[in-house]
């Protein structure tokens, strides 16, 4: 009977075990690579869809600002649409017939007449002259020129007929169509017309909302962190507060929206859709983040600092306010910035308090109805027009840029001011 030696058993299994080891290791690496691949896929797919939105198709028209049609005392009242139409007819004289003419007028955005009106109102001397102006083209033209509408697909499946494509090519040959940087996107509010829609209104709404959030959440969050870390006795009550804060950090954001709706809007009668209410809701939502980060920052301050301050006769409040808090401030600011970034990207609670309305005007006060960037993205993503897809992606790119900047600032703060004792 040959004795089975342990070493043989071990060596016999070794090959299999090493194979498993390699497999396990590869699986781990694959998991990371796959996750990062998703991340890059997300970024690539959004930038591929969105980068075209930063340029916009414009058509140059030669308009006669007819003095018989414009009342010089009240230039705002005149109907500039007819002048735009006339200019288009002159540019493509071969277009005849009511129907064709109507499609011809559709080449240019409805915003053109307002652009002319604003131009004349700003400078009334233009009345009676002939001006060449670049006006935004309709979104369908824009989509065609950017290649989002396939020219070779059957005519019935496109929004632009062969005839209109012919006119557009004609205009292109005349050199009166070109793509320019899209300033409208950064300077105007929302619009039903994709070519006139911009993110300025939503960006201002986000700014106001974040200001309210910061003004409320930062002082309250710092106060709560200081109390819990420096003053609170260790008893049941403090324990309850702690558990509570940790729980609040994990409550779904939409629940905060329900709170805002029932409490701030229905009970206290604050205005719907206002950055004020949005900011209140978001500040309650970000408060746990700030408190938790603030406590970590306070914990990192070594006890010797406290003891030294108390030792030379400072009171406890003086010790905290003069020594501990300034040392913990960078950490607290980092936490606050991360909380603000979270608030900037939040959508669901704001839907609950009515920040989904279609708002054209750019908000100027905390109680004006407003949208915020993520809500604007949500609204545009729901719009059927093809042109809104690229606008949505572009708005997402802007939002992500803001978020990256904020998080970058947080990382910088941490690197710059982090102290190791």
């Amino acid at each position, binding site marked *: 009977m040959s004795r089975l030696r342990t070493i043989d058993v071990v060596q016999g299994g070794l090959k299999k075990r090493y194979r498993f*080891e390699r497999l396990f290791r590869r699986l781990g690496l694959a998991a990371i690579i796959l996750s990062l691949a998703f991340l890059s896929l997300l970024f690539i797919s959004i930038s591929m869809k969105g980068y075209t939105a930063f340029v916009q198709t414009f058509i140059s028209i030669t308009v006669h600002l007819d003095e018989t049609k414009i009342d010089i005392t009240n230039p705002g009242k005149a109907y500039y649409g007819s002048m735009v139409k006339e200019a288009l007819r002159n540019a493509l004289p071969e277009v005849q017939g009511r129907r064709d003419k109507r499609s011809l007028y559709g080449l240019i955005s409805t915003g053109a007449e307002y652009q002319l009106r604003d131009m004349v109102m700003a400078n009334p001397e233009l009345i009676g002259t002939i001006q060449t102006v670049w006006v935004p083209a309709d979104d369908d033209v824009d989509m065609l020129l950017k290649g989002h509408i396939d020219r070779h697909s059957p005519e019935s499946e496109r929004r632009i007929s062969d005839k209109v494509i012919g006119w557009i090519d004609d205009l292109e040959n005349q050199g009166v169509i070109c793509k320019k940087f899209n300033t409208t996107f950064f300077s105007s509010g929302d619009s039903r017309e994709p070519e006139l829609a911009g993110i300025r209104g939503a960006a201002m709404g986000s700014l106001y909302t974040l200001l309210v959030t910061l003004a409320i959440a930062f002082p309250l969050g710092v106060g709560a962190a200081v109390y819990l870390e420096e003053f609170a006795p260790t008893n049941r009550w403090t324990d309850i507060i702690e558990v509570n804060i940790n729980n609040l950090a994990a409550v779904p954001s939409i629940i905060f929206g329900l709170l805002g709706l029932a409490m701030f809007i229905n009970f206290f009668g604050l205005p719907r859709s206002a950055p004020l209410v949005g900011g209140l809701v978001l500040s309650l939502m970000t408060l746990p983040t700030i408190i938790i980060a603030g406590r970590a920052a306070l914990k990192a301050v070594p006890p010797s600092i406290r003891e030294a301050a108390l030792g030379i006769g400072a009171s406890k409040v003086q010790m905290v306010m003069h020594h501990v808090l300034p040392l913990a401030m960078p950490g607290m600011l980092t936490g606050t910035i991360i909380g603000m970034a979270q608030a900037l990207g939040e959508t669901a609670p704001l839907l609950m308090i009515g920040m989904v309305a279609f708002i054209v005007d750019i908000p100027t006060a905390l109680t004006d109805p407003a949208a915020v960037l993520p809500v604007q*993205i949500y609204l545009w993503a729901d719009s059927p027009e093809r042109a809104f897809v690229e606008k949505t992606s572009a708005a997402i790119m802007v939002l992500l840029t803001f*978020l990256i900047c904020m998080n970058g600032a947080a990382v910088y703060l941490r690197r710059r001011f982090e102290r190791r004792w």
Partner: protein
Amino acid sequence: MTPLNIFILVVLLSAIVYQIGRKKAFTVSGNNIRSLHSLPTHYGFFTALWCGLPALLVVLVWFLCEAAIVSNLVLADLPQQLRELSTLQQSILLYDIESLADGGVISRDVTAEMEQAVAHYKSLHATSRAALAVVVLTMTVGFSGLALRRITPGLRARNQVERVVRILLVACSMLAILTTVGIVLSVLFEAIRFFKVIPLTDFLFNPQWSPQMAIREEQVGSSGAFGALPVFWGTLMISSIAMLVAVPLGLMSALYLSEYASKKLRLIAKPLLEILAGIPTVVYGFFAALTVAPFLRDMGAIIGLTVSSESALAAGLVMGIMIIPFVSSLSDDVITAVPQAMRDGAYALGSTRSETVLRVVVPAALPGIVGSVLLAMSRAIGETMIVVMAAGLAANLTVNPLETVTTVTVQIVTLLVGDQEFDSPKTLAAFALGLLLFIVTLILNIIALRVVRKYSEQYE
């Protein structure tokens, strides 16, 4: 005066009073501050707090109540026929009156009664603001006068100021409790009103969900079934798909990063993974609805499967990507907390790295890992924007992930977005769903936090 102006005014006044109080302290000490009980700045703060704090409290309470009181007064003074309108019509009327008073335009014709009401509203508003200004000014001046008179070298200003500071700090930390109470109360009250109309058992066990209430009696298809079962089923299905994606990916990433990866890779990969958690959910929603869902539909068409364009699979997959970092970074924390001695022991016995990881590290870290998975699950259940944009509205009791299902959060959003009568069962149902969602996530969170906490104490 706008609220902001009053606030700034009070703060400015307090700043001035602070200086006066400080000077007064010097004066009463006869320029020998050693005779003072506290530092001169404490006397300054003492007067400033007396000046600002009561006034600010009054301003706060005033603004919280003003809108409700003014609108009730306006409503009470409306002519008889307008007062008999339903609550909804009254609130619309009130809204119109308010926007008229703000100089806005409304969609209906302005009647004589409304003009009267607008004038009334304006006068009430003006009176309220004027009264507030008077009250605040008297309070600031009166209280700072009283405080200034109390300044003597023996006044224990520091103790008093510090007591106020402590009370304020306690108040800050109480806000967390107040928020929870506010959430519970606001959701609970509306939910109770809902359960008065629809019995609780019906809500929990009815397999039908079609939240339409009949406007007219004989209307077709408006039976209004409020069974939350299919809605919860959909939530469960989508979040399970998400967990199927997130748990293996997140856990394996965490294990690799903590056990195998070089320091450099760890330094790069960990923040990159955390970017996934920082991307706004609306972006994921857009990605799911416009990239993943059409892709899945086309793939399904190729292999001959009908995939709905709002399939549970698309929403679940993208949600899974979103919660990878929740699983990975929390698990990573607990895995690195496992004492090195345990690993060394396993190596000394001749085990390979993967055996050490699977038989020693993972069992030791298991409670923490379970905690992180539960937290991620609660995040998935409460996630809103991805499902609002990528999942459907129809409540289906199905096990096929290629079909459309709906979730609790989608239903809350669809029921509450838009202008509806606030006390119809339809809108109240949203609060009932919210209550259920809150309870479920709360239970998950509490278990998870408790498990993680207990575990982290174990190795400390």
